[in-house]
C-alpha cells in the first residue's frame, strides 16, 4: 500500500457545503463563478475518458479529452457557504450546494488561532417553546368569539412610562377628571417593532428598504409600526424629515453616530418615536457591538464619524456601574435631551439576572424608564464569534413570563412596557409568536432577522450563509459593496415586507377573535395551553395533550 494521500490537505468533503455540479448540463456560461461572492467556485479543467466504437463491428477505443468545468475551491478561506446564488443564476440547473454532514470545517477553520466569526443567530437548533404553545381557549357558547373581518380591534401597545392611577396628576372638578400636570410621554404603537439593525450592519439600501416599508405601513395603511435605528445613527436627511417620528434612535456603548444626531437636533421637525439605550444583545450577551472593517465603507465612516477599521462598541457603557446609575445618568440625560417628550427605553440581553434589573427599574422614582426590551438567545447579529452565538444567552419566553409575573407581584404590570425579542417569527409566523408572547405578558415584540429574510436574506439557522460579518453578503443586505447592494431591488424588498406585515395584521385579528378580545390580550395566559408539561409548569399555563 502506498502513501497516496496527505490527510491534512483540505478537500471538498472537509467543508460544510459541497458543490453538486453536472458537467453535462453546464454550458460554461460562467455566471455561477461571477456570482459567488465567496470565491468558492473556479473554472478548472478535467480529464475525461470515454470509450467509442466507430466500426461496424465493435472495435472499442478509449479516448481522452480535456473538459472545462466549474469546480469548488477547497480551501478554508474561500469555502462555499451554501448561499445558493450559483443555483439561482444557473440557466441549466447544473449546479447547487449540498450540505455536508461529515464536515470538519468547524474544527479546522481557525486561521492564526482565531475563533470562527459569523452573523445570523444560534445554529444549535433547539425545539422552540413558542411552537409548543397553542391558543387553546376558544370562545364559543358562553362567550361568543368575534368576527375577525368586521369587528374593530385595537392592536396597539404602549412605549413609554405608564403611571399608576394615583400617580397621574388628576384634578376632580364638577364631577369631571382633568389632567393637571406633566407626565412622561407614552406612544401607542404597533406591537411589533422592526428591530434595531444599523446602517453599517445593513447596507444603506437594505436599511432604506426597511425604512420605506415603515413609512408605507404608517402612511398608507395606518399601521403605526416603528423602526429602531440600530447603533450608528442614520442619514441626516431622514433625521430632518417628518419620517423621524417613525424611528426609534438607538444609543449603544460605542455612542457611534450620536454626534450627528445631536447636531441635527435643532433642525428636527419631528421628535423621534423613542430612544433605545442598548445595554446588551441576545445573540451575543456580554459582547459589545462589532462592525468589521470590511464593512466600514466611506459613507459608513461619514455617518458614524470614524476611520476605516474594525468598529467595536465596548461591552459596557462607560461610567455605568449600577442600575441606579443607569437610571439617573443615562435616562435622565436622554430624556432631557428631547425635553421629556420622547420615551427612553432600555434594551438588555435576557439573562438570569434580567428580572432583578426589571424589578429595580420598576421602582424608578423618576418615571423615566419608558420600556424594557429583552433580547433572547435566538436574536440575530451582524457579527459575533460563533461561540457566543451558539452558547451564550437566555431563552426569551420564560424570561418574559418571569419578568411579567415579577411585575404582577409588585402590582406594577404594564408600568414599564415589556418588549421581547430574539427569534420572533423564526419558524415563519411572526403574528403567532407575537400573540403568544403578549398573552404571556409582553406588551409587544421586536423582530430583526425575519425582517431581513423578508428583504431577501437566504441565511438560516442551520448554518446556511451567515456571512453577514464579511462584507460579502450575497444578497446585498449586509454589505457595503455597491456591486452587491445592486442585487437588492429595494422597492420589491420593501413591498414584500409591507405585504408580510399586512398579513401579520390580519393574522393578529384572526387570533384575537377566537379568544373574544378586541384589544391586545396582554397577560392573558389563560388563552394559552402547552403540549409540554414542563414548559406549561414553568410558564404557569395549562398542560394539554
Amino acid at each position, binding site marked *: 500500500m502506498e502513501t497516496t494521500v496527505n490527510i491534512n490537505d483540505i478537500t471538498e468533503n472537509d467543508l460544510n457545503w459541497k458543490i453538486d455540479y453536472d458537467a453535462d448540463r453546464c454550458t460554461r456560461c460562467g455566471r455561477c463563478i461571477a456570482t459567488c461572492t465567496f470565491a468558492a467556485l473556479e473554472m478548472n479543467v478535467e480529464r475525461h475518458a470515454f470509450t467509442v466504437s466507430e466500426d461496424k463491428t465493435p472495435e472499442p477505443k478509449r479516448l481522452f479529452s480535456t473538459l472545462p468545468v466549474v469546480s469548488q475551491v477547497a480551501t478554508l478561506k474561500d469555502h462555499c457557504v451554501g448561499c445558493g446564488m450559483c443555483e439561482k443564476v444557473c440557466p441549466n440547473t447544473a449546479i447547487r450546494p449540498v450540505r455536508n454532514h461529515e464536515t470538519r470545517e468547524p474544527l479546522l477553520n481557525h486561521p492564526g488561532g482565531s475563533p470562527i466569526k459569523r452573523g445570523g443567530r444560534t445554529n444549535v437548533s433547539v425545539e422552540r417553546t413558542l411552537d409548543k404553545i397553542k391558543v387553546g381557549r376558544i370562545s364559543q357558547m358562553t362567550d361568543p368569539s368575534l368576527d375577525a373581518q368586521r369587528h374593530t380591534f385595537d392592536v396597539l401597545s404602549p412605549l413609554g412610562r405608564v403611571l399608576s392611577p394615583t400617580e397621574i396628576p*388628576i384634578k376632580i372638578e364638577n364631577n369631571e377628571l382633568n389632567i393637571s400636570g406633566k407626565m412622561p410621554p407614552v406612544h*401607542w404603537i404597533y406591537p411589533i417593532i422592526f428591530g434595531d439593525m444599523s446602517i453599517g450592519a445593513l447596507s444603506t439600501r437594505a436599511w432604506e428598504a426597511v425604512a420605506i416599508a415603515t413609512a408605507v405601513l404608517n402612511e398608507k395603511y395606518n399601521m403605526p409600526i416603528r423602526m429602531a435605528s440600530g447603533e450608528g445613527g442614520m442619514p441626516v436627511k431622514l433625521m430632518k424629515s417628518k419620517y423621524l417620528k417613525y424611528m426609534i434612535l438607538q444609543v449603544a456603548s460605542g455612542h457611534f453616530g450620536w454626534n450627528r444626531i445631536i447636531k441635527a437636533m435643532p433642525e428636527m421637525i419631528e421628535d423621534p418615536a423613542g430612544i433605545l439605550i442598548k445595554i446588551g444583545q441576545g445573540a451575543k450577551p456580554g459582547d459589545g457591538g462589532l462592525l468589521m472593517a470590511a464593512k466600514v465603507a466611506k459613507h459608513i465612516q461619514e455617518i458614524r464619524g470614524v476611520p476605516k477599521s474594525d468598529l467595536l462598541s465596548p461591552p459596557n457603557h462607560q461610567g455605568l456601574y449600577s442600575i441606579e446609575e443607569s437610571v439617573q445618568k443615562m435616562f435622565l440625560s436622554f430624556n432631557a435631551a428631547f425635553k421629556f417628550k420622547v420615551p427612553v427605553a432600555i434594551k438588555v440581553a435576557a439573562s438570569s439576572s434580567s428580572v432583578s434589573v426589571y424589578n429595580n427599574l420598576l421602582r424608578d422614582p423618576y418615571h423615566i424608564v419608558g420600556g424594557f426590551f429583552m433580547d433572547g438567545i435566538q436574536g440575530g447579529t451582524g457579527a459575533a464569534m460563533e461561540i457566543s452565538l451558539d452558547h451564550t444567552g437566555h431563552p426569551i419566553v420564560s424570561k418574559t413570563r418571569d419578568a411579567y409575573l415579577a411585575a404582577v407581584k409588585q402590582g406594577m404590570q404594564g408600568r414599564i412596557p415589556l418588549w421581547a425579542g430574539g427569534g420572533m417569527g423564526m419558524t415563519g409566523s411572526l403574528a403567532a409568536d407575537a400573540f403568544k408572547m403578549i398573552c404571556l405578558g409582553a406588551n409587544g415584540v421586536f423582530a430583526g432577522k425575519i425582517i431581513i429574510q423578508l428583504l431577501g436574506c437566504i441565511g438560516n439557522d442551520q448554518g446556511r450563509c451567515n456571512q453577514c460579518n464579511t462584507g460579502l453578503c450575497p444578497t446585498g443586505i449586509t454589505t457595503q459593496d455597491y456591486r452587491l447592494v445592486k442585487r437588492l431591488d429595494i422597492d420589491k424588498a420593501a413591498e414584500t415586507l409591507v405585504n408580510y406585515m399586512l398579513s401579520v395584521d390580519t393574522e393578529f385579528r384572526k387570533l384575537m377573535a377566537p379568544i*373574544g*378580545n378586541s*384589544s391586545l390580550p*396582554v397577560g392573558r395566559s389563560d388563552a394559552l395551553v402547552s403540549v409540554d408539561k414542563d414548559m406549561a409548569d414553568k410558564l404557569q399555563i395549562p398542560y394539554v395533550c
Partner: protein
Amino acid sequence: MCRIGCIKSLDPFHPRFALNLMLPQQKGHDNSGFALVMKDLSGIFEPYKKYPILSYSSTAKGRDIIEAYMLDRGFGRPVFQWKPKTKIFTDQFDFEKMDYYGFEAFALPVITQGTTEEEKGEFLLNTHLELREILEETGDGYIFSFWPDTLTLKEIGNPNHIGDYFNLWEENEAILAKNIMVQYRQNTNYDIVRYAAHPFFLQGYTLCANGENTNYVKNKEAQQNLHRGYIGFESDSQCFLYTLHYTHHQLKWPLSYYKHVITPLPFDEMESHPNKALLLKLRESLTHLEINGPNTIIGLLPDNTLFTTCDSKKLRPVVIGTDGRMVGITSEVPGLNMILPHRNAENDIYPNERETVVIGNDLRIERWKQQ
C-alpha cells in the same frame, strides 16, 4: 347565563318581588344557586339602621367561632337578630342547607368611638376579612356582608326551593327593603362555592354580573395587589365589583369613569374626544382592569344609587322598566312583566354598549353616554 336583577323602589317591598322578577327568566337545568342583597331596610330592622348587620351561614361550630370572635373584638352580643322562619328541611329541598343562617346587628365597639365614617368602614371591612379567614381555615362558615342596613342571603341549589325554605314567597311586613339585588344562578360549572354567587359585596358596594369575564386572569392579577379586600376571586365577576370599588371608593373618581376604565373607548374614537389626553392616560394606566365581555353589570353604590352598564360588545341582554314608584333592572323582560305588569313597556330602556343607566334614590333615570 346567570339571570340577574335589581329592584329599587320608593316604598319598602318584600323579597318575593325579587323572586318574582327572576322566576320567569329561569331556564336550563342547573339552578346552582340563589343570592340576594337587601339595602335600605325596613320592617323589623328599621330601628337598627345604624348598626352593621353580619350576614352569614355556618355550621354549629362556625356559629360559636363567630360569637367568640365578635365578643373578643368588643362587639358584644348582637343588639338584634333576625331568625328567618324556615320550613322543616326535607329531601324535597334541593339545596345544601347549612346549620345556621345569621343576620345579626351589632353595636360598634368602643374603640371606634370618635372615628370618621371612613375609618369605621375600614374597621368593618377588617372585621369581615378576619372572620372570613378564620372560618375558611376549618370550612365552618361563610361571611357575606357586614355593613349597616344591608342583608345578604346566599345559597347553592335550586333557587325556588331556597326561596321556599326561607318562606320568601310569602309577603309580610317583617323583612322589607327599598333595594334588592338578586341572582338566579344558571351556572354550567357544578363545582361552585357560596362565595361565587353574586351579588358580591364590599364596603357598601354591591354588584352582580352575568357572562364570563374573559379578562379574568388579567383583572385578578392586577386587583390582588390593589386592596386588601380584593380577595377570593371565586367568581370571575368579583373583578367587576373590585374595579368599581377601586375607581369609586379608592380613587374617588365619579361613577361615570367606571365605564371609561372597564370599557375604554377605542383609540380611534378617543382621537376626536375633547379630553383625549385624560382618557388615554386612564386607559394606559388601568388597562389591566379592562373587561372584554360578554357581561351585563348591575351595581349599587353605598348611597344606594343603582346603575347598569355592559361590555363594549353588548353581548348580554338587560332591560330597565319603571312604573314611577318602582324600577326594575333585569336580564330579560318577562321578569319586569311579572313585577311591573301595569307599567308602560314602551318606555322600557334597552341600553347600548356605551351607556351607563343610573337610577337615583328619587327613581330618576339618567342615561349617561360614554363619549
